């Protein structure tokens, strides 16, 4: 179909869809009047039952931890998929077309200010990750923040230090171990005679870093996985540009 026809037909049917969307939304409870009960019950009990002050993370890593297991494996599968799609076959011959040259070494001023910034990012990432059950944040957010560090290095330092960090098989192993150990925590509770993904560790004191049992542990696993996952995806895209080697046609 030609684009013009396609767009016109779309406006008719998309309009019908939008109309019914809005028409049916009138029956929703008015905005700002959430009626519960699921969320209210959890908000009421999560602090007592799980010693976690951030009830969103209590839901994610405990009440509905099984969803999060699925979610982490979605990420894991996608990383495998990206690496597979952008893989280089063993039998492919490559040719060098010249890599992107490293820029001039940045001025000392930029580097001396950049390095503390990077260090600060690392600290911030760990803080966010460790306090997941207490304040907003958690393994996922920490993972993304930590994954940004090598990219910052790529920008301020050079491609070599980026490559040293990200191209290792270890990163791949960390990705798999993070995802796998989440499932293993679930299996551990099975071994202890409890249902899958039960919170089997002592809950500790509310407000402590080491509180709320497996929530913190799961959060850590996710942190490792997510950091590795984003690095792998980034490296898969950048590999050719950094090495300058592309497969022979």
């Amino acid at each position: 179909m030609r684009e013009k026809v396609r767009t016109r037909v779309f406006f008719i049917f998309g309009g019908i869809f939008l109309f019914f969307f809005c028409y049916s939304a009138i029956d929703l409870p008015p905005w700002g009047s959430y009626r519960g009960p699921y969320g209210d019950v959890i908000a009421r009990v999560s602090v007592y039952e799980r010693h976690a002050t951030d009830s969103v993370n209590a839901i994610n890593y405990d009440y509905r931890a099984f969803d999060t297991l699925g979610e982490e494996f979605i990420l894991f599968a996608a990383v495998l998929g990206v690496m597979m799609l952008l893989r280089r076959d063993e039998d492919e011959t490559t040719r060098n077309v010249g890599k992107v040259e490293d820029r001039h070494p940045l001025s000392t001023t930029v580097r001396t200010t950049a390095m503390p910034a990077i260090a600060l990012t690392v600290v911030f990432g760990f803080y966010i990750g460790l306090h997941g059950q207490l304040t907003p944040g958690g393994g996922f957010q920490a993972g993304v923040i930590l994954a940004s560090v090598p990219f910052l290095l790529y920008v301020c330092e050079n491609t070599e230090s980026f490559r040293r960090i990200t191209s290792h098989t270890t990163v791949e192993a960390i990705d798999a171990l993070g995802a796998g150990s989440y499932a293993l925590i679930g299996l551990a509770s099975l071994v202890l005679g409890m249902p899958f993904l039960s919170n089997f560790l002592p809950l500790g004191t509310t407000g402590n870093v080491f509180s709320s049992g497996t929530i913190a542990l799961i959060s850590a696993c996710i942190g490792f996985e997510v950091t590795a996952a984003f690095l792998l995806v980034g490296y898969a895209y950048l590999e050719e540009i950094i090495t300058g080697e592309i497969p022979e046609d």
Partner: protein
Amino acid sequence: MIAPSPLTPLPIAVPLVGAALIACFRKWLNRTAADTLGILLAAATLAISCSLLARAVRGNSVYWFGNWAPRGSIVLGIGFVADPIGVGLAVLASTLTLFSLVYAWRLTDSGSNHFQPLMLIFLAAMCGFSLTVDVFNLFVFFELMSTAAFALCGLKTKEPAPLQGSFNFAVTNTIAAFLILTSIGLLYSITGALNMAQIGLALGTRHDPLVLFAFALLICGFFVKAAIVPFHLWLPDAHAVAPTTVCVLFSGLMVQLGLFAVARLRFMIFAQTFASHEAFLRLILLSLGVATVLVGGLMCYAEHHLKRMLAFSTICHAGIMLLALGLGTPLALAGMFVYLLAHAFIKGSLFFTSGLLLHRLRAIGERALFAKGKELRWTSALWFLGALGLAAAPPFLLVTGEAGISKAAEEISMPWLSWVCVFGGMMTSAAVLRIGMHTFFGWGSEPVTDEPAEVGELPETAKEDRRTYWYQFAPAALCILIPVVLAAMPGWHRVLRGACAVFSSQATMLHLVYTGATVSGHLSGWLPALKASALRGFCAFALAALLASTSVFKLHLKRNMRFGAFLEAGLRPLRILQSGHPGDYVLWLTIGLATLSAASVLLLK
């Protein structure tokens, strides 16, 4: 009351841990080791699912993750229901995955050992999808299944076609996922629950536009996965380009799981919504089903790329299963599940066989294969048996499923529906027969061809070794054998009928989820209807043979007798529909979405 087996989460946990394990040591494992690990893990999953099935047969149970059982009427955590249907689907998923991994042993391209972990994740997602009774968990597994499927579909990165095919697949199915999520959000806002039982309880008989619209979004989302017209466009593209082993899982189970989800939601959530509008709901679903059978059947016969032909045949048979779902009685549902089971194996066998042809003869287009397969006696036997199976003729199990659907249609005084089934069986069987006659016998003149068949496909295996190994042949042969064996021992029908009676009764399912108490269901059998059905099946096969012959021997026939050749050219509008352009596919998705939401809000009010 039967306590849930502590092994209930293992069909998900075992493959997931296994996938992480293989991926972790991906670079250090050689091909054989990675394959062996994958096969062992799939076999372990199969064994666990079988043990769960043995328990589920004795009675349904409900499993709460993290020990979060419901408090009063409020469900706190995520629950699994281990009923014979859900667990049975998990068994089917692990069987097909095991076969696929065995078939792929050492020979086909594994994408540097990425293939095995992705297959295991795909398996885990299918198992989770069939067991869960939490709508958001259903969405998570839907997305997990899709993500693994997108990646697997693009495994063959050496040609451009797989990448386009999986792009179209990914775009349409991702939109479907968001449709489902939107619907979940709407349902959550009025019921405050995510567990299907609790949502159903809270909705009651309410059927204002909001509920109907949410229902329309849900069925649209799952119909994209189930490749129901007009949401089917992605499927042939994805199937034509995916590796053979992956096609087996796509066509055998993934597509049908969309229908399974609609069935589960319709009976657990919307059972009372439509209590007063059964007829209209039936009208909508049956017309979609008939359209799907027609489009799938006609396009199936018009295709000359083997896998694309099989893909349209899957669409056609998904339409037949939708007919059963549309009828909506427990009997029709039982027929649908038997049909699903039989179809999965027969279609799996046909895909394996087409993979064998690609391996041996290095081609997948009908013209390129012409008269090349004369020496492949065993392979041709499998292919023709598959044709017999698709026509729903005895001794294959498909005939039992068709009998159930036909009997259910008769009870609602729509006996003509069984002729729609015959049409679907005839067209799909005829296409398989035509290709078989051309390839294995070399009858007739050189076959006509079309664009995708000429584009073809690069072989999946290395060039040097072109023998057929036992581990390639065995899965294909077993896939033909299993439906025959299952049809020969009808003892398990009683269990399935009971399970369907429970599955389709909202009150029983609510009782089960909240108290864990098992109520056994009862449903009378339909074996007397088998005779007429067998007759129809043979009739369909005979007609298919006739049709295929008018196509193959067209030069010996008068011009007005060449029905087959006429149908083979394909209906032009249907071909144009299949444009391969993601924009067109999204447009058709929007058209279907608008039509279905208008139909449900206006008709079912």
